[in-house]
């Protein structure tokens, strides 16, 4: 499993002799053990999907959103400790509003992703706080002149930010990533990506090990006027039905 910290892992302000900060790596483990989250950036938009384990039969389905909006055209999905995810999104919301107030126009997604990365990085510098146990996918679509640029960024607990065409987080990330690599993301439309994301989530979900899950999806597409919105219920149901059918076809 993981290497033993041997005393260098008690504080995030301590380096190990081989140059690692163990506390930050352990925070990454919190992300790696969560439910699958995936993001796809396609030709005309971005799709975010998350596999939420159903904690109780009495929980209201469709509530307890895990994918949140930071601004009208920016969505964020978190993997890892859910409360840490909310903390990051709240900060992002504040950043977007401040930027709009000061500069008069919407915050570019790249600038937001870098700000969030700096924010998350702060928690790895001080002894008095613990590192953020959440990775965040930031999905946005900037408008410049007449052009629209959909973008997807991943911000990790160590403060690193990277731009992606498609990526996955959580327990089944390796198999999800290999499925994503098979897709032709740059020519796919957002509508097709919704179906593809649903298929991947169902495919990598481990029936034997994990509980029942609820699929939550959002998208930014021409159909939503490039605003970050939940995938409509009928479209989601259709995508899920197709995903289940594909699984059954594979099992035969």
């Amino acid at each position, binding site marked *: 499993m993981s290497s033993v910290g041997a005393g260098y892992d008690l504080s995030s302000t301590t380096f190990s002799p081989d140059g690692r900060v163990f506390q930050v790596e352990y925070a990454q483990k919190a992300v790696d053990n969560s439910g699958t989250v995936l993001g796809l950036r396609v030709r005309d938009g971005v799709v975010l999907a998350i596999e939420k384990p159903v904690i109780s039969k009495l929980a209201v389905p469709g509530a307890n959103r895990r994918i949140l909006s930071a601004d009208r055209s920016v969505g964020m999905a978190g993997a890892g400790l859910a409360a840490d995810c909310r903390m990051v999104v709240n900060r992002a919301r504040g950043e977007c509003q401040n930027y709009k107030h*000061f*500069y*008069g*126009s919407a915050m*570019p997604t*790249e*600038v937001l992703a870098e700000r969030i990365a700096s924010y998350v990085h702060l928690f790895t510098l001080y002894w008095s706080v613990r590192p953020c146990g959440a990775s965040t996918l930031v999905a946005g679509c900037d408008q*410049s*002149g007449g052009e629209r640029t959909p973008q997807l960024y991943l911000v990790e607990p160590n403060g690193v930010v990277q731009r992606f065409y498609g990526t996955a987080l959580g327990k089944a990330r390796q198999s999800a990533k290999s499925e994503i690599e098979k897709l032709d993301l740059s020519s796919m439309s957002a509508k097709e990506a919704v179906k593809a994301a649903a298929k991947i989530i169902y495919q990598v979900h481990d029936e034997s090990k994990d509980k029942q899950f609820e699929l939550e999806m959002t998208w930014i597409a021409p159909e939503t006027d490039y605003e970050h919105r939940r995938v409509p219920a009928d479209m989601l149901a259709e995508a899920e039905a197709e995903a289940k059918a594909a699984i059954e076809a594979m099992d035969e």
Partner: protein
Amino acid sequence: MAYTQVNIPVSLGTTIMACKFGGGGDGDSASGVVLCADSRTSTGAYIANKVADKISQLAEDIWICRSGSAADTQAVTEYVRNGIRQHCSMQQRPCTVFTAAQLCQQIAYNNKSRLSAGMIVAGYDSEKGGSVYGIPLGGTLAPTESYAIGGSGSTYIYAYCEKFFPTDAPLTREGAIEFCRKAVMLATMRDGSSGGCVRMMIVDSAGSEKRFYRGNERDAYEESRPATNQ
């Protein structure tokens, strides 16, 4: 005994204006802007600088006309320049005229009780083409589709500008230059705090061009008018 006070705050009692030109009539972006200003800086009755340059640069193709307290407008200009540099560095793209005007307005509004600064921000960017924004005392952001005038001398040319700004077709580049130059010159002939020469900046997709018109153009204008008491 009367004496000239030289320790009064330096003021830019002035005439400044900026106007858009070009662009189609159906909401196409304007091809450019002309900024124009007089050149008198006064300390009370003493003209501290008769060839002042009241048009300052905020970014490569974004300029600002300054009126009011010289110190206040220079300080605001420096802050806005700094803000623009940081903003461009962050977003890796040139600044838009709107953002420059917004930054200027934020400073003017948040310090309204401390500042005496009337400004006009104008320039060219690839998103909106030529744009003009007036930022009068108090810190309003006033976008305009035609022109903006400011400073003490502007009161004398409100009627002139209203009458002679063409409403049937957009101004051409030469038309805009003539319109602004004439207006500022006329203002300097009536406002005691405006005078000297006329400085101009023409900004379009090709960049910024600086122009200078000597004060003796006023004499040429006077000569050209018919004698009235014959």
